[in-house]
């Protein structure tokens, strides 16, 4: 049935070719957008993981990999502001040789020393000292490594102090371990713009699911093209003995063929969209190279899921008609496809374009809130395929980030 299905779909005239091409284009767009959304989710996760150490608190469990019991480390996290840019500042004071060391640096900075991220180092160098550099007393002893930075443009500093003096500072707390990831994080809703990460991840995951809908709708839009001729062909085949299952299989082959072509093009589209997406600052922080990657599960989900969805969509379409050897009868009159059905896809593309255009560097907390507000303009799908944009609806339920 596969070869017969391929033969029928590939040599069925211009109208049928347009139907296959349109379906493939729909799938390609859907796949491109879906992969971009999944890569975005992965990117946010990677950002949040790298920045998790900034969420260290007195409740953070000490690392078990350290041989001797850790000497406590005095820790105070604050957000500093320079212009419209937020700076993650951690003031620390080591109490002994076994004090846990934050990631991305060789040792805990001593009194009069500080580490700074490359972006902050550059900013300090290009800014008058009385505006920024004087906030960090002493000398810079190194730059924080990329493994400890949510983003290449993250502004982060770790400033060292004397433990006896620093222990008296209000808000400073003793910690015995450094937060290494999100899995056992006690207070990951704060600081560094990462607080919005989990929420954004859910929103992007929602977007990924929502982006499947335009694929279905466009496939459904393409299906009526040459449908009458196709159904008559199926009726002729039923007359000479094609079983309903064989007809269904042939329709599935036609749908799969378009879906597979669409997936191939969709992956190409994803690699183009990924370049744009890298500049989108969902949390106010740029993605590092490699953040916007796909897991095997993502790839398998798309490569298997999309053709299955296309096949399911084609089968549902066939259920609307009864194809007998004598001809075709419709179970219910189908409304002619309207332009409205394309609205969801356009909205999805618009959403991504909006992020691409509007994702300018801002203060991180401010940017995170802005991103959440923007993402909250996610299309909400109604049964009939119409969309309503619920501006700000999600932000009302979100945390403070």
């Amino acid at each position, binding site marked *: 049935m596969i*070869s*017969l299905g391929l*033969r*029928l779909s590939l*040599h*069925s*005239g211009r109208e*049928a070719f347009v139907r296959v091409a349109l379906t493939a284009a729909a799938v390609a767009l859907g796949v491109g957008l879906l992969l971009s959304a999944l890569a975005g989710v992965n990117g946010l996760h990677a950002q949040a993981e790298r920045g998790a150490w900034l969420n260290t608190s007195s409740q953070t469990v000490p690392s078990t990999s350290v041989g001797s019991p850790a000497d406590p480390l005095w820790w105070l996290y604050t957000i500093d502001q320079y212009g419209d840019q937020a700076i993650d500042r951690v003031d620390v004071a080591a109490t002994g040789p076994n004090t846990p060391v934050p990631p991305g640096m060789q040792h805990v900075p001593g009194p009069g020393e500080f580490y700074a991220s490359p972006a902050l180092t550059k900013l300090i160098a290009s800014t008058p000292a009385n505006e920024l550099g004087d906030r960090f007393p002493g000398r810079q002893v190194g730059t924080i490594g990329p493994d400890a930075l949510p983003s290449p443009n993250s502004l982060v500093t770790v400033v060292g102090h004397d433990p006896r003096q620093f222990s008296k500072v209000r808000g400073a707390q003793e910690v015995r371990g450094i937060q290494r990831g999100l899995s056992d994080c006690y207070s990951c809703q704060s600081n560094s713009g990462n607080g919005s990460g989990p929420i954004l991840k859910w929103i992007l995951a929602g977007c990924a699911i929502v982006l499947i809908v335009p694929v279905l709708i466009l496939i459904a839009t393409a299906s009526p093209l040459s449908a009458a*001729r196709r159904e008559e*062909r199926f*009726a*002729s*085949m*039923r*007359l*000479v*003995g*094609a*079983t*309903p*299952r*064989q007809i269904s299989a042939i329709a599935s082959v036609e749908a799969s063929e378009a879906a597979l072509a669409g997936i191939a093009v969709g992956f190409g589209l994803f690699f183009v969209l990924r370049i744009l997406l890298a500049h989108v600052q969902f949390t106010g922080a740029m993605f590092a190279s490699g953040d916007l990657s796909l897991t095997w599960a993502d790839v398998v989900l798309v490569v298997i899921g999309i053709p299955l969805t296309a096949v399911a969509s084609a089968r549902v379409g066939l259920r609307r008609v009864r194809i*007998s*050897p*004598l001809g075709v009868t419709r179970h219910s009159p189908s409304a002619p496809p309207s332009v409205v059905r394309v609205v969801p896809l356009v909205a999805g593309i618009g959403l991504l374009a909006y992020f691409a255009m509007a994702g300018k560097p801002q203060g991180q907390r401010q940017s995170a809130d802005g991103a959440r507000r923007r993402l909250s303009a996610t299309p909400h799908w109604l049964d009939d395929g119409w969309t309503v944009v619920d501006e700000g609806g999600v932000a009302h339920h979100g945390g403070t980030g």
Partner: protein
Amino acid sequence: MDRHHRGAPDRARGCGAAMSMARTSSVAEKGGAISEARNLVVSFGETPALRGANLVVQRGEMLAVMGPSGSGKSTLLYCLAGIVTPDAGEVHFESQRLDTLREKARSELRRDRFGFVFQFGQLVPELTAEENVALPLLLGGTHRAQALGMAREWFEPLGLEGLEQHCTGELSGGQSQRVALARALVTHPDLLFADEPTGSLDSLNGELVMELLVRAAREQGTTVVVVTHEARVAAYADRQVMVRDGLVTSSDPAIR
């Protein structure tokens, strides 16, 4: 020619070769019912099509079902072919009850044991002439090359040589109908159903199609049920029955 394909086991079959070694069949030679309709009742909405129709089709005969438009003759044929399920009554094909079979089994019967020639051919326009002829074989799982080879053997005896690769849209009405005939015969069916097979053709082409149909069917030993309102088409039959108001009203003896 492969004589052992699915649905056509061990019978002396063929088209070109088979035609030359024709074995003439008659009702008397064959004997026994191959298909039977008992008290068939079929309605389409409020409109009754059959109102207790009875008919026995003898193995090997060529039976013409005649009647005016709307008499129910086509519906009777569809019931015998398992295309339409009667509201009441029974349809038997050989030893099995056809009207209670599942759709899959009925489809397989249509594919392997029955052949169809309808008024407008019902060809698949996307396929070439030879692919159309090979379609029942392809649906039955015969390898494509083998199926096409078997299909091509029907082109010369039916006067279609050179048209194998043509799309059906490029064929004349008579040629299309002969392609449909080849498709009906390629599986060497036990029972061939023809519904107004010459209805869309001029008299010359109509006669050509009927002559080929009768010749091929007789050579293969295929039973033929032909629905027609044309006396000249019915004249090819061994026996004629008349359908009026949903009932089989008369069964005349063989004409030839």
